[in-house]
């Protein structure tokens, strides 16, 4: 119903969003959620990375948030009490390894300087790509840099490669970088990365109907992307101060899934849980977390109820 508790006092719902060209920004920009959940006092908070979203959850300031699968698996290991009710996007060619001339294979990266935003999905994918190619990450000079610093460092010529997302990725390509591999390739070897939604366990337990309504609106955004990409892009562009054409370019590297598709076994129906477990153990190997929890902790963090209901409804 979403009418709140009827005594006229609105229930607070705080949403942490990030500037990523996906449906979340359409929902925000179009005010769909506010219309769908009139009994809720909805607040949108802009975050700069999955890491700070995790911190905000730990501090209890957030009900629903957006974070990459890598930060989410770390958050679950911490543990932070949240669940995954939705996949905003599957990261495809939007995140990729861009390299300077003369580097033609991953093995060439040995001894080279590779920049990546630490703790992000791209960091995970880079390590996964190195592992798949059989390169010991300690032989590569991997440095931490935020995307805009990567762009600057690239034009200055002080890095040899970077695993990064758009628009920096496109910028590097326009400055002559070649793409060695991308997250779609990495996904093909089983190390898929996602931008995930997380909802605090408490909120999901107290207000399942709100979560369901939230998912319905997200699914509506995905449908809009498929039926009317220009309107979709305009809404996203308004949020990002970007040209809609550019928005569509960037979104092309992401895969958006409707509620029905997400309910299937590949995603919330089972595959995502396995992915989170794998991501956690990979993070442990990479020494970016200290211990993994029991498998169940990750599997049970997947919250398929809302997509199921929306898919059925």
């Amino acid at each position, binding site marked *: 119903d979403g009418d709140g508790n009827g005594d006229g006092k609105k229930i607070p719902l*705080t949403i942490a969003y990030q*500037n990523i060209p996906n449906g979340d920004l359409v929902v925000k920009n179009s005010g769909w959620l506010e219309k769908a959940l009139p009994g809720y006092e909805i607040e949108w*908070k*802009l*975050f*700069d990375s999955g890491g*700070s979203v995790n*911190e*905000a959850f*730990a*501090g*209890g*300031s*957030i009900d629903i948030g957006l974070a990459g699968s890598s930060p989410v698996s770390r958050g679950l290991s911490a543990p932070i009490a949240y669940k995954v009710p939705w996949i905003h996007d599957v990261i495809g060619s939007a995140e990729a390894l861009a390299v300077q001339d003369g580097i033609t294979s991953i093995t060439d990266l040995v001894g080279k300087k590779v920049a990546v935003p630490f703790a992000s999905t791209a960091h995970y994918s880079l390590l996964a790509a190195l592992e798949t190619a059989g390169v010991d990450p300690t032989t590569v000079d991997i440095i931490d840099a*935020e*995307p*805009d610093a990567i*762009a*600057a460092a690239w*034009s200055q010529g002080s890095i040899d490669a970077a695993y990064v997302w758009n*628009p*920096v990725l496109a*910028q590097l390509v326009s*400055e002559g970088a070649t793409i060695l591999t991308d997250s779609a390739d990495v996904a093909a070897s089983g190390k898929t990365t996602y931008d995930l939604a997380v909802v605090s366990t408490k909120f999901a337990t107290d207000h399942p109907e709100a979560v369901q309504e939230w998912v319905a609106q997200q699914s509506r955004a995905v449908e809009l992307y498929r039926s009317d990409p220009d309107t979709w892009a*305009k809404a996203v562009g*308004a*949020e*990002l*101060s*970007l040209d809609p054409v550019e928005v569509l370019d960037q979104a092309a590297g992401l895969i958006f899934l409707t509620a029905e598709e997400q309910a299937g076994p590949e995603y919330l129906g089972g595959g995502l849980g396995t992915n989170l477990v794998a991501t956690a153990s990979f993070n442990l190997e990479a020494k970016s977390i200290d211990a993994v929890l029991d498998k169940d902790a990750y599997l049970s963090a997947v919250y398929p109820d809302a997509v199921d209901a929306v898919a059925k409804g």
Partner: protein
Amino acid sequence: MSTDLIWRRRIGDLALRLGAVAVFFGLWWFVTDRGVWSEIVVPKPSSVWERFIQSVTVHDDVRGLSGYFLWEHLWASAWRLIRGVGWAIVIGIPLGLLLATSRPVRVVLEPVISFIRSLPPLAYFSLLIIWFGIEDASKVWLLFLAALAPIALSVISGVEGVRTDWVEAARSLGASRLQVVGHTLLPAILPELFTGLRLSIGFAFSTIVAAETVDGIPGIGGLAWSTKKFLQTDVAIMCVLVIGVCAVGIDLLIRTLERRLVPWKGRV
């Protein structure tokens, strides 16, 4: 000095400053026109100007940038700054006086202050968020902590430098310890206090982006931060320019105030 001369000098100053600004923009235009550096890092003055126009108009059905007009961003940040620096003044001056006049307090609190002021906001901001929430309170706290040290420290240093015979005279004229603080120390340290205030405000300004990395829209720092991640460097540069210009304006204001309130500086 005659009023005439004062005015001539003021006009001269203005001309010099405008000249400097013109040189700056000229150089900027020159290097970007030559394409010395990538447009992504050093955008052209013209694109920054266009962004500025966008930021104060409704364009393509969008209000300003990131949904707010420039002045809304600015005011959101200014209000945070005002509260942060305001508290820093309200707390910092008595704190500094207390530290300067009470030895046991100083022995314990002075290291605490030098500890706090050396901490990197980026590293402890999440603590503030967990304590004060994600809203303005944590941002104001961050700005407060940034602004506190210069004020407290300049008060301490000022009091240490006060002529002992001023204090002695006050005491033997019947001033209580508290009155000495209020009627002798406080006015005597005004020159140092103004320096502290200027440093403090500057420092708070330079912390505005760090404070607005999380939930910073509307906010001029938040706008810079979020657009920079999107390589909209022109927006970020516009924000930085706006921040800088505001800071310079406030600084000149404080300088003027200082000259009015401390006419004896260097004359005793």
